[in-house]
């Protein structure tokens, strides 16, 4: 046969199969797989970018470059060349004067375009209604914040002094982006037009000025710009996105990504199972045709080629349809998210569509090809002896290619080899456990020698086809498990996740509390109705040695590591482990009291700086060296918004050094007077407002939760296809059996009961396995993945088993209803 002839024949086979409904299921499975992967791809691509954009509103930009010296103008020119928005800001401390009063404030000189991200909100008068500024102060005008306004007691016509100039006060700043810890964060603020800066004479060589270049634009362009700029910056110049600046935001974003990736992986796994089941059924139904073709002289090679073309075309068509669905779904999503997200969604890139199509196609290859190859090997004798060439349960080996595709997917999605291998290992182990569990259940059911031919027939049917039954139960269990996880457990998990950041999470930090003020500050806050805050001692020290080896920024290439090593660390001491900390290696000293020269180090920091268990860390604290050994590593929930420390010592090591205290508390909105009173009572303390960061993280969590729920719709669809495919995979055999039974005199009731027994038992077994899997999965997701405390609901077992039995029995009896309605002769002729 010539190639063209073969292709024509393959096309005709495909068309015939399509008309006969033979490939509907397999096409649906591919379509859903591709649609799911594509949509999830768009989600993880676009929504993730939205989340980052939202997060960037905190920073006031997508990227900030800052230095204590004027920045190279080339940095700004390059940004403009790349089509990025850029604006420069100068920040410095200065006295602001009015009449006989002078207050130290932080001055921010801004240029048109500020802020690039987020909102600057102003009010016409103190405590008046505010609005988005939309511009910057005009020349000769400054905007001040409420605290400066109150401190200087500014009246309508007053002009405040700044260096050599005097300015009218145009508005009161109520909200500004660009929250930054550390730099005079507690001071009152003044916003000034950069145009007026020179006249003030405040910026002189040696002044404490921070020059900042804000950059914003398309995220890929920003990343490209960052890559361009990074090597051109001399050391000491900082370049940061919001992830660098805020551990809370980084933590929340990473969790959202993990959740989305998990959803994507689940969809892919389910789709793979659906395709494998659908392909298996296709194989069973095409054995005769293939035997006949071989009988008529087609070689194995010809048959393999015919079906390869057949399935290539099917794959391309179904993948195209799936991609179209995915694109449509994400368009719906854009409309829908458009109502809750306040930033413009970035345009969809082509990559997720290509990924989706490629994944669907690879899944088809991996899971449909093995049965097709065995189709070519069908013995020609089958035309005479139908019982020849009935395929057994395909071994795992046959699906090696498919497994490799899945493994590659997991590794790619997890984007981290260790995590990917862990997930993969768990998946393989879970499948093995599920098979073993099903086998045990079948044995147990087999001992239930009960009354009634129908029940006995149903039970016997399951046991007689142990291999096929295990395959079916495990496939059903996967589908049910997905549904259980996504409906019951998802809500729990999402709720637990959101509750991990309660609405009354701390939104203010106080630092620089002197030891003799600690008790008084605590009392002050408690008297004003905030929960009695916990105060933590803090000693500042520079890390100079790790494991006896001195360290400097030059020892690291990683930007975060270089930055960390040049800064002073905040060290603390404590007896108890904080509630949002978890020991991941070693032992906390409360359990093994003894030496005082121990440190407990946050895991992320240890990884970044290459600190290991047992390493001696030497800190330089106010000129004195303090050395202690790392005896534990902790994971910290940074997004709990509690005070936390990278390095903690047991009591007794650091008490002798100059310490200040730090605390965090929740201040309900609108209670600014508490802050003013606090600052008046304790003038030396520094107040840091993280309310914006907090509400931003909360908003991000809400959006991420919505996104995850949307993605899970596809996972549910994939789960339903798996259920249908699993039931349909043995439908022909059941139809045939039931027809023989009817020919031999079985009543409809007998057949229905036998089916009920068989499907019900299959469903119950699958429900049991699924409940076990869902509980395990939820536990794993909560503890290993999202690091949340979570206890699975025992109702999962009841709903899993009862739901599985009822659902599968209903679906199965519905699917085999045909046998009770069709004349046996027709079924015998069609199937026999």
């Amino acid at each position, binding site marked *: 046969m010539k190639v063209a002839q073969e292709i024509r024949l393959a096309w005709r086979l495909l068309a015939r199969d399509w008309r006969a409904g033979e490939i509907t299921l397999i096409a649906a499975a591919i379509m859903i797989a591709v649609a799911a992967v594509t949509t999830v791809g768009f989600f993880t691509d676009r929504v993730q970018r939205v989340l980052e954009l939202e997060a960037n509103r905190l920073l006031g930009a997508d990227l900030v470059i800052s230095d204590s010296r004027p920045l190279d103008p080339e940095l700004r020119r390059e940004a403009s060349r790349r089509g990025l928005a850029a604006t420069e800001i100068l920040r410095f401390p200065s006295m602001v004067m009015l009449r006989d009063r002078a207050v130290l404030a932080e001055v921010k000189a801004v240029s048109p375009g500020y802020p690039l991200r987020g909102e600057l909100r102003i009010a016409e008068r103190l405590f008046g209604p505010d609005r988005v500024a939309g511009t910057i102060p005009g020349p000769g005008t400054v905007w001040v914040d409420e605290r400066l306004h109150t401190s200087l007691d500014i009246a309508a016509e007053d002009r405040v002094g700044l260096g050599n100039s005097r300015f009218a006060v145009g508005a009161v700043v109520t909200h500004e982006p660009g929250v930054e810890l550390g730099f005079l964060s507690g001071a009152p603020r003044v916003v000034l037009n950069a145009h007026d800066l020179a006249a003030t004479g405040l910026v002189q060589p040696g002044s404490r000025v921070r020059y900042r270049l804000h950059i914003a634009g398309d995220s890929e362009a920003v990343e490209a710009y960052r890559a361009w700029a990074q090597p051109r910056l001399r050391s000491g110049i900082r370049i940061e996105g919001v992830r660098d600046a805020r551990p809370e935001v980084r933590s929340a974003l990473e969790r959202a990504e993990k959740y989305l990736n998990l959803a994507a992986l689940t969809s892919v796994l389910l789709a793979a199972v659906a395709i494998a089941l659908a392909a298996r059924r296709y194989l069973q139904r095409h054995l005769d045709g293939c035997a006949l073709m071989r009988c008529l002289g087609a070689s194995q090679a010809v048959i393999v080629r015919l079906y390869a073309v057949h399935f290539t075309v099917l794959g391309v068509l179904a993948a195209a349809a799936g991609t179209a669905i995915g694109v449509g779904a994400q368009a719906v999503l854009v409309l829908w998210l458009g109502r809750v997200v306040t930033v413009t969604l970035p345009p969809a890139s082509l990559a997720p569509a290509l990924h989706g199509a490629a994944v669907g196609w690879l899944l088809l290859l991996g899971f449909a090809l093995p049965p097709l190859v065995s189709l070519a090997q069908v013995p020609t004798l089958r035309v005479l002896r139908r019982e020849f060439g009935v395929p057994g349960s395909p071994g795992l080996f046959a699906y090696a290619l498919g497994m490799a595709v899945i493994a590659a997917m997991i590794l790619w999605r997890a984007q981290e080899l260790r995590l990917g291998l862990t997930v993969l290992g768990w998946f393989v182990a879970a499948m093995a456990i599920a098979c073993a569990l099903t086998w045990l259940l079948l044995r147990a059911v087999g001992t239930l020698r009960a009354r009634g031919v129908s029940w006995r027939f149903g039970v016997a049917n399951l046991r007689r086809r142990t291999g096929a039954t295990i395959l079916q139960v495990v496939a059903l269990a996967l589908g049910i498990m997905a549904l259980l996880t996504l409906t019951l457990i998802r809500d729990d998990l999402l709720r637990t996740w959101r509750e991990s950041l309660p609405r009354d999470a701390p939104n203010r930090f106080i630092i620089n509390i002197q030891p003799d003020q600690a008790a008084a500050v605590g009392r002050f806050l408690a008297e004003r109705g905030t929960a009695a805050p916990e105060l933590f001692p803090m000693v500042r020290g520079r890390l100079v040695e790790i494991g006896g080896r001195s360290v400097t920024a030059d020892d690291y290439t990683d930007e975060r590591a270089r930055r960390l090593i040049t800064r002073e660390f905040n060290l603390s001491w404590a007896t108890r482990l904080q509630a949002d900390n978890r020991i991941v290696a070693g032992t906390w000293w409360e359990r093994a009291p003894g030496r005082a020269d121990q440190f407990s180090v946050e895991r992320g920091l240890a990884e970044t700086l290459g600190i290991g268990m047992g390493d001696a860390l030497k800190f330089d604290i106010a000129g004195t060296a303090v050395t202690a050994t790392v005896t534990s590593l902790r994971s910290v929930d940074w997004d709990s918004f509690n005070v936390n420390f990278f390095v903690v010592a047991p009591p007794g090591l650091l008490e002798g050094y100059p310490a200040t205290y730090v605390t965090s508390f929740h201040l309900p909105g609108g209670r600014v007077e508490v802050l003013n009173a606090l600052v008046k009572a304790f003038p030396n303390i520094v107040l840091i407002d993280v309310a914006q960061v907090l509400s931003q993280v909360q908003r991000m969590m809400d959006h991420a939760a919505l996104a995850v729920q949307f993605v899970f719709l596809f996972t549910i669809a994939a789960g339903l296809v798996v259920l249908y495919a699993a039931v349909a995979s043995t439908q022909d055999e059941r139809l045939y059996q039931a027809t023989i039974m009817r*020919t*031999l005199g079985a009543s409809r009731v007998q057949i229905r009961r036998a089916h009920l027994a068989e499907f019900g038992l299959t469903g119950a077994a699958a429900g049991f396995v699924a409940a076990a899997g869902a509980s395990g999965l939820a536990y794993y997701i909560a503890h290993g993945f999202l690091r949340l405390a979570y206890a699975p609901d025992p109702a999962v077992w009841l709903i899993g088993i009862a739901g599985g039995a009822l659902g599968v029995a209903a679906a199965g009896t519905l699917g085999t209803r045909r046998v009770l309605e069709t004349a046996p002769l027709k079924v015998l002729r069609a199937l026999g």
Partner: protein
Amino acid sequence: MSNSRAQIILKASGIGKQVTTGTTELTILSDVSFEVRAGETVAIVGVSGSGKSTLLGLLAGLDTPSAGSVGINGHDLYALDEDGRAALRGRMVGFVFQSFQLLPAMTALENVMLPLELAGAAEAAAPSRAMLARVGLGERLHHYPKQLSGGEQQRVAIARAFVTRPKLLFADEPTGNLDAATGGQVIDLLFELNRESGTTLLLVTHDEAITGRCDRVLHLSAGRLQA
């Protein structure tokens, strides 16, 4: 062996069957009437497509006719609903098919036990074993169909057909899938068992060796019985 005084066990009256394919209506059987007395052996012959297998299916209640009626042992088959027909089959009718129609997931013994189990027989295993021994498969009880030769499979099917002691046995080309020698052995077995149990045998066949052994031969041509 024809016995004109024996009771009529099967009575076909004016059976017709039409099927619609697309827009054309196809007549498969038209006005087929005949009677079969208890203990008779009757062969239905005709060229391929003459409607033999359809007629057999209608006589057994496996499909519904477009016209006419079928009486089995005095019961009007098509006055019964599907369950009623199934119950009647279970009580009175046995089958042997050209393609054996054994359930592949069951052993030889389980296949033979099936009709007894369906009829709610108290003891299914012992008579099934005995029947398999009778057809010469006493040593192959626990073999699956795919482990048996064609002739052996047909013997299992015959054992399954006779294990319920049916009054009426339908056989559709019972030797159609077998070589001449094996076919001959199977036919010998079929007629032996028929004689032993006094069953009425109605079979569709091309095989002249079979028609020669039957009491009566009905010729079917283009859906009509030839006089």
